[in-house]
């Protein structure tokens, strides 16, 4: 699918992580963090926010009023941190799935994470309503996501012993449908849970707390690290299963590791923020189209850009109709889709 001409030295070098793009992506993330901290429905001067950050770092008295201080450091800052973690996770997991399944439509929810998490959350809301406000809810969603993908993997593996991508995707679709059936059935039986279930699915970042940030940080950090460490393997996998095998890569083992890492991270993200669509597809593809088709560039850049993208999206969700808010998934798709359409038109599509 690649160009017919053999890669020259230029081509080979460009397959790594271009330093200028890395710097640009890092600047984008930093800018997003600053925007996330300074822009919101309330006007608080950026200079005062900077001074209060300084004051907090050195244990001084914050120059902001008690209320503004709470808005910046207890409402905006955790949303920025959680948005960054979730955005980076979804983008990196999306990139990894696209590479390992060689499928441009693969997103982090491909193997049923979201449906499993939805079923887990619905079970808690329906049967343990008292626990719906506690940590049991994200925990059940997390476990639901893991269980769904584990079932999909077992099913896919029992069909194709080599761990073929096609069988695994079909198994994922099957398990996802089953999980959706469980969730819909429970909602139908106990209709007063519907509202809570949708509130969870659309959760977004509006309820972000430092506690939630700490809850998911270890899972996402480990998962993202594993996926970044596999960026070269993803490059090899992208040439095809047989070819990768002949190059000495244990395809099955690599795929298990990548799927496990992406699943654990995505489940953690879904557990605290509900379903946020489009990030896992749009961010890796934008980088693929603009920068390089090598996963050595796509994976680390997805991490930075995904984090920045979701932070900015959340700012838009909270301010576009301010003081009314929009579900973040609507904003990611509403602003993400036209942007991606432009990128798609302006560049040359290269198969995965």
């Amino acid at each position, binding site marked *: 699918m690649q160009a017919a001409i053999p890669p020259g030295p230029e081509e080979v070098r460009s397959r790594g992580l271009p330093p200028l793009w890395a710097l640009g992506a890092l600047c984008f993330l930093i800018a997003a963090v600053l925007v996330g901290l300074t822009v919101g429905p309330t006007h608080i001067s950026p200079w005062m926010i900077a001074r209060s950050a300084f004051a907090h770092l050195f244990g001084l008295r914050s120059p902001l009023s008690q209320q503004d201080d709470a808005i910046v450091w207890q409402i905006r800052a955790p949303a920025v941190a959680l948005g960054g973690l979730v955005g980076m996770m979804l983008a990196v997991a999306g990139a990894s799935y696209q590479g390992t399944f060689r499928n441009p439509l693969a997103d982090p929810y491909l193997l049923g994470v979201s449906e499993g998490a939805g079923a887990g959350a619905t079970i808690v809301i329906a049967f343990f309503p008292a626990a719906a406000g506690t940590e049991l809810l994200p925990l059940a969603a997390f476990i639901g996501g893991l269980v769904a993908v584990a079932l999909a993997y077992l099913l896919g593996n029992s069909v194709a012993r080599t761990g073929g991508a096609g069988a695994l995707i079909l198994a994922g679709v099957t398990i996802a449908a089953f999980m959706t059936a469980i969730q819909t059935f429970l909602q139908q039986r106990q209709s007063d849970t519907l509202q809570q279930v949708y509130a969870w699915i659309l959760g977004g970042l509006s309820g972000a707390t430092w506690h939630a940030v700490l809850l998911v940080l270890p899972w996402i950090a480990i998962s993202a690290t594993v996926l970044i460490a596999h960026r070269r393997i993803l490059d090899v996998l992208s040439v095809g299963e047989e070819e990768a095998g002949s190059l000495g890569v244990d395809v099955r083992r690599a795929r298990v590791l990548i799927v496990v890492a992406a699943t654990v991270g995505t489940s953690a993200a879904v557990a605290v923020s509900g379903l946020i669509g489009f990030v896992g597809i749009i961010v890796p593809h934008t980088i693929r189209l603009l920068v390089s088709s090598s996963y050595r560039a796509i994976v680390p850049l997805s991490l930075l850009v995904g984090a920045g993208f979701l932070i900015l999206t959340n700012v838009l969700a*909270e301010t576009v109709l*301010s003081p*009314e808010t929009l579900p973040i998934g609507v904003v990611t798709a509403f602003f993400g889709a036209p942007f991606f359409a432009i990128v798609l038109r302006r560049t040359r599509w290269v198969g995965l």
Partner: protein
Amino acid sequence: MITIHARHKRRAQALLAAAVALLTTLAGVHVAAGAPRTARRPARASSNGVPLPADPTRIVSLSGSSTQDLFADGAGKQVVAVDEYSTYPKNAPRTKLSGFDPNVEAIAKYKPDLVVISDNVDNLEQHLAALHIAVLVEPAPPTFNGIYPQLLALGQATGHAAQAAAAVTGMKREVASLVASVKQEKPPLTVYDELDQTYYSVSSETFIGQVFTMLGLKNIADAAAKGTTYPQLSSEYIVASNPDLIVLSDTLCCGQSYKTVAARPGWSTIAAVKNHDVLTVNDTIASQWGPLFVDFFKQVAGAVRKIEHR
């Protein structure tokens, strides 16, 4: 599916619309949104063209608000079945029937001569017309005073016009004395009414929001109500608005309480939280436009007096 109460339903519809927008980008999930609301008809005509029976004896009510109205009018004995969310009065003949996801055959099994609904979901009116069953649609009124005509209309339709008029007079008298019981301070006290823990609220353009207006309160959701009467606010906006009174209408649905509200990040700086002016109300009573809604009015007035007398 979902709940009965108008605002729950509206909120659910808003959630559903958003969910559909989101989920269609993720997977092929289809959720049916509620049918559009039908206009009010004159009291003596049915909503679906089937003539109203002169003296209905087998009434099915699929709306919690109308169930309250029918019993307050003295037509309780004529009611043979009410939906699963008709919580009040306690002795109403509750069944598994649903007004949100109505099953025409299940309704017809009760051989009703009149069916009262709040929304014409899934063309229920037309389906019941085919079975020659008269339907009255009594939707959520846009104003507080819109509660009274429904009480009167259902009284007339069931042969209890006098008792309905008496019930209305009693309600109006109680409301007037509650309005007179507060000082209506200048500048006005501010209020935030919470419908669920994702900060859905009500504007003053609803029968619920009008309670706050009538008591001289300023509703922080009004600034956000652009084209919607049930806006979703942000945590930051609520904290920055610093309301004097928080009304929690999500105690039953979502388990919210003073404790959960005070624990939210940044919320401990809100005046209402600092002063313990967080009013917990019964979600069902606070969302049904029946005679019990006066209880909600009374609770809010009590909370306002408590703040004014401090």
